[in-house]
């Protein structure tokens, strides 16, 4: 086995598009999925905007036998996994069951399901709580349900590092491939748009309380006021390159070329955030220098201080306006672990089509972010071979991923 990890399939469930190409077209057209919360009555809460996946009717996508045991976000994950496998042209029934793994990231578990069952517990008693509460609330549930549905019995797991999760899971998928498991579903899907989940989001203290969907989430902008939560994410099919070639897979989107992660020191420690070092380590892991990176997909906190920290780290590595930087998540909100998985999918689509999707709604970069070459207003066409995806999660989790397009014809000779 070559042990080169290539991405052969993408499956997206995003607030501005259900399905990879639907999402990608909407993103290039600048169509936003952020709007007033509809999943529950949020009128009494200080923040009332969210990125909701619309047009998703679960029974159209999910077997009836799975409906009583799945939270909304798990259903989205199952659909994203289906999309990804279809895109990869992979039929799990024809692949070795112990050669397939599932490694996803998740941040909240099944909040909506959990809230419903807790309500039953308090109002009706323990005998009314669903037996499925035992796993439906749990972070690992998406990995478990995907694994069971497709008979994927290789080493599997879940990573919980908030926004960094989608990248950390992908990095872990590459480890499995290097250790000999040739086929891994990875990425992440998140979402907790229920009153209980909303309270958890609010507790972070960074949500934008604005009403205008175009002015609520403005990362790197002088008018930044916080962020908007969203639901969804992406599932990536990652394979050993030789395995993919031998099973007749279509041309991969690219390879997982570099990965690094770290955790920020305590804010009062006097030591700098780890982002710059994590970027440098991811580049080193890929065997690339700053000039080799064609575009950066930013974490884009939407909060002035972390925005400035990210801008300083990127500028320190790449120089003033040294690389195009973008944050298409301005169209969907921050999806926790699903966010960096979706950014990775978006980066691979950008490589495929030679176009950088813009950072929506941002018009007036903050002085502390002026060193960034932000892609604003419209998509920017460019010859793209490599992309760097950044994520900084609540709690200091930091991760960076380098994806690189494949050279030459496909299939390559052995």
């Amino acid at each position, binding site marked *: 086995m070559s042990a080169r990890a290539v991405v052969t399939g993408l499956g997206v469930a995003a607030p501005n598009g259900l399905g990879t190409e639907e999402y990608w077209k909407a993103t290039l057209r600048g169509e936003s999925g952020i709007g007033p919360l509809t999943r529950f009555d949020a009128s009494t809460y200080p923040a009332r905007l969210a990125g909701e996946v619309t047009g998703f009717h679960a029974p159209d996508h999910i077997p009836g036998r799975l409906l009583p045991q799945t939270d909304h976000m798990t259903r989205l994950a199952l659909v994203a996994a289906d999309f990804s496998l279809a895109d990869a042209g992979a039929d799990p029934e024809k692949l070795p069951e112990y050669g397939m793994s599932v490694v996803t990231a998740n941040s909240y578990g099944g909040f909506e399901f959990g809230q419903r069952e807790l309500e039953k517990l308090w109002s009706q008693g323990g005998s009314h709580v669903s*037996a499925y509460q035992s796993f439906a609330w749990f972070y690992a549930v998406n990995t478990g349900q995907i694994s069971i549905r497709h008979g994927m019995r290789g080493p599997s797991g879940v990573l919980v590092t908030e926004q960094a999760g989608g990248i950390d899971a992908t990095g872990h998928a590459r480890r499995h491939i290097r250790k000999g498991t040739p086929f891994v579903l990875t990425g992440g899907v998140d979402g907790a748009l229920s009153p209980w989940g909303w309270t958890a989001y609010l507790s972070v203290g960074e949500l934008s309380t604005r009403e205008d969907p175009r002015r609520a989430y403005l990362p790197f902008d002088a008018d930044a006021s916080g962020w908007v939560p969203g639901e969804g994410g992406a599932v990536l099919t990652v394979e050993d390159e030789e395995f993919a070639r031998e099973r007749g897979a279509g041309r991969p989107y690219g390879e997982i070329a570099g990965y690094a992660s770290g955790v920020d020191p305590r804010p009062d420690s006097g030591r700098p955030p780890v982002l710059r070092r994590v970027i440098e380590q991811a580049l080193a892991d890929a065997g690339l220098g700053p000039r080799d990176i064609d575009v950066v997909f930013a974490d884009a906190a939407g909060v002035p201080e972390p925005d400035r920290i990210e801008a300083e780290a990127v500028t320190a590595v790449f120089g003033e306006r040294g690389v195009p930087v973008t944050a298409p998540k301005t169209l969907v909100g921050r999806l926790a672990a699903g966010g960096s998985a979706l950014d990775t999918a978006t980066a691979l689509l950008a490589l495929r089509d030679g176009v950088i999707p813009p950072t929506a709604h941002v018009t007036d970069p903050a002085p502390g972010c002026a060193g960034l070459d932000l892609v604003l207003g419209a998509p920017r066409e460019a010859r793209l071979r490599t992309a760097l995806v950044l994520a900084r999660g609540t709690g200091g989790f930091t991760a960076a991923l380098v994806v690189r397009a494949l050279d030459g014809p496909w299939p390559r000779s052995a």
Partner: protein
Amino acid sequence: MSQFTVEHLKALLEQAAGQDADAPALTADTLDSSFGDLGYDSLAMLEVASLAQRQCGITLEDEAVSDADTPRKLLTLVNGLITADAA
């Protein structure tokens, strides 16, 4: 409830564990199939037992439920308890 019928059990299974058009359904022909073969795992049976207790006003012991591993055995178990309660 004086009698726990096949139709009652069918509705209860659907409420507890969902149903698909192409999944094996509960019919006169499958009364002696194991719940496992019909696609219900142990957790689904836990949920089924929980609903049956509430809807029929009976108490089901865990061991009795795991021994009642076919629809016919579960119907017999539940109906026996309903009758005992009524007596």
